C-alpha cells in the first residue's frame, strides 16, 4: 500500500493524462484545465530551476571577488532587459539582450558548423564504398545514396525551365521521388513516435510495472467520469 500523498499523485497523473487525451473526442473543459495546469507547472519548474542555478553560480563563483560581482550584475541586468519587450517605451532595450544572445549563439555555432554539417558530410559522401563485401543491403543503400544526393542537389541548383531540358528532366523526376521517400520516412517515424508516446502513457494508465499498480483503478474510474461528462455535455447542448 503506497502512502496517501503518493496515491493522490497517481490519481492526479491519471486525471491529467486522460484530460489531455479527451481532446481526441473534441475541445472540452477537461482538456483546457489540463492544458493550463501543464503550461503553468512547466513554466514554474523552469523558473525555479533557473533561479536555483543563478544562486549556485553566485554562491560558488561570482560572489568571490569584486570584479566577478560586477560582471554578474551586468549579466543579470541584461537578463532583466528581456522583459522590456512587454513595454512599448523600452522595447528597444530588449533588442540589446536579443542581439547578444543571437550574436553569441551564431558565432558559437559558425565556428564549427562548416566542418560538422558541411565538409564532413561531403567527405563522407566522397568516401562511400558502393560495394560492401558480404552486405548486399548496405551496398544497395550506399549506391542509392551516391545517386540520390547529387540528384537532389542538382534539383535545387537548376530552377525554372532549365529543369525541363535534357538530362535534368530525368534527374528532376528522380530527385522528387527521393525527397518524397525522405518525407515518407520522416512521416512514418513521426507516426511511430506518436504511438510510442501513447503506448508509454497506456502502460502507466494500466499500472504495468514499474508504474504504480494503483493507476489502473484510477484509470477506470476517471475514464468513466470523463466520458460520462463529455457525452452529457454533448447531449445537453444538442437539446438546447
Amino acid at each position, binding site marked *: 500500500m503506497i502512502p496517501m500523498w503518493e496515491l493522490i499523485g497517481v490519481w492526479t497523473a491519471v486525471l491529467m493524462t486522460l484530460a489531455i487525451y479527451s481532446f*481526441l473526442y473534441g475541445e472540452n473543459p477537461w482538456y483546457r484545465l489540463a492544458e493550463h495546469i501543464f503550461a503553468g507547472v512547466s513554466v514554474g519548474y523552469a523558473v525555479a530551476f533557473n533561479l536555483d542555478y543563478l544562486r549556485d553560480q553566485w554562491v560558488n*563563483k561570482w560572489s568571490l571577488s569584486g570584479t566577478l560581482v560586477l560582471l554578474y550584475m551586468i549579466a543579470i541586468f541584461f537578463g532583466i532587459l528581456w522583459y522590456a519587450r512587454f513595454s512599448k517605451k523600452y522595447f528597444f532595450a530588449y533588442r540589446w539582450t536579443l542581439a547578444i544572445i543571437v550574436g553569441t549563439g551564431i558565432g558559437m555555432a559558425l565556428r564549427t558548423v562548416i*566542418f560538422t554539417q558541411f565538409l564532413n558530410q561531403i567527405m563522407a559522401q566522397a568516401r562511400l564504398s558502393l560495394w560492401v563485401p558480404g552486405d548486399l543491403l548496405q551496398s544497395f543503400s550506399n549506391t542509392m545514396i551516391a545517386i540520390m544526393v547529387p540528384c537532389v542537389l542538382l534539383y535545387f541548383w537548376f530552377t525554372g525551365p532549365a529543369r525541363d531540358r535534357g538530362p535534368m528532366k530525368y534527374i528532376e523526376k528522380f530527385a522528387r521521388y527521393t525527397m518524397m521517400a525522405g518525407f515518407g520516412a520522416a512521416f512514418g*517515424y513521426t507516426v*511511430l*513516435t506518436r504511438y510510442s508516446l501513447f*503506448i508509454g502513457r*497506456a*502502460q502507466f494508465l*494500466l499500472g504495468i510495472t514499474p508504474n504504480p499498480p494503483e493507476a489502473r483503478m484510477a484509470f477506470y474510474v476517471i475514464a468513466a467520469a470523463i466520458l460520462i461528462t463529455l457525452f452529457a455535455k454533448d447531449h445537453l447542448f444538442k437539446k438546447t
Partner: protein
Amino acid sequence: MSILEKMQNIDRRYIYLAAWIFVLFPLFFPLGLPVPIGRESVAWFDYIEAIPDDSVIIVSMDYGVSGMPELYPMTVATMHHLWTNCQANNWKIIVLAFWNQGPLVFDTLLTQIDPAADYNVVYGEDWVELGWVPGAETGMAALATDMWSQTPRDYLEDRPLTEYPIMAEILTADDIDLVISIETGTPGLPEWLRQWNDPFGVPFIVGCIGVSVPGMAPYLSSGQLTALLPGLTASGEYELLLNRPGLAVAGLDAVSMSHLLVVLLVVIGNVSYFASRGKEVS
C-alpha cells in the same frame, strides 16, 4: 453516400477509438509476437561492451517528461549496462542534462533503481550527477572548456565538486572519453557535434525518439555519430540483448498492433481513393 465515400470520410473519433483498442488490447493480453533484433541495437550494445577500461563517460539526459514514454526505457537499460560494468572496467560516469527536465527524469529512475544497492557503485567515486546545465549550445561550449565553473555543485547531494574524488581529474572535454546523449531535440546531436565532437574529438552515441531518426541518419553514415538507438522498438531489442526485459519489451506487442492499424488505415484510404477516382473518370 457510397461506401467508398464513407471510407474516405470516417469520423476521426472512430479512428482514435480503434487506436485505443489496438494499443490497449495487447497490453491487457500480451501476444508474445517475435522480436527480431535490429542492427542498431546490436551496434549500441557492442559499443558499450567495448568501451575501454578507465573511460570517463558523460550520460546526458537531453529530454523532458514528454519524451519519457519512448526514451525512459532505453535510459534505464543503458544505465543498467553502464553501472553493471562500472566497477569491473573502472568507468567513471557523469550524469548531466541540457534540458531542464532531465534531472527530473533521472530522479524517477533513481526511485526505481538504487545504484549503490543494485550495482555496488559509490556515488562520488564511480558516478556523479551534475544536474542541469543551462544555455543550450552556449552552455555546452562553456562546459567543454571548464566543467567545474559551469556546475560548481552536484545535483543529488548539492555539495561542492571538490568533495567528490571522481571529479578530481575531470576538468574539460579533453578528459571525457565518450558522450551518451539521450535526446528529443534541441539542444541535441548537432550541438554536441559542433561543440564537443569536432573541436575536442569526443566520440558520442545517441538514443533518440523516432521523429529524429531521418535527421540523424546522415551523421551515422558519415561516421560522426558512432551508434544510434532509435525509438521504443530498438529499446526493446536492447533490453532483450541485456537479458533484462522491461517497459520497452512490454510495449512491443502494442507497437506492432498500432503499426498494423496504421497500415490498415493507409490501405483503406488508398483503396477507397483510387476506386472512387476510377468511378469518377468512368
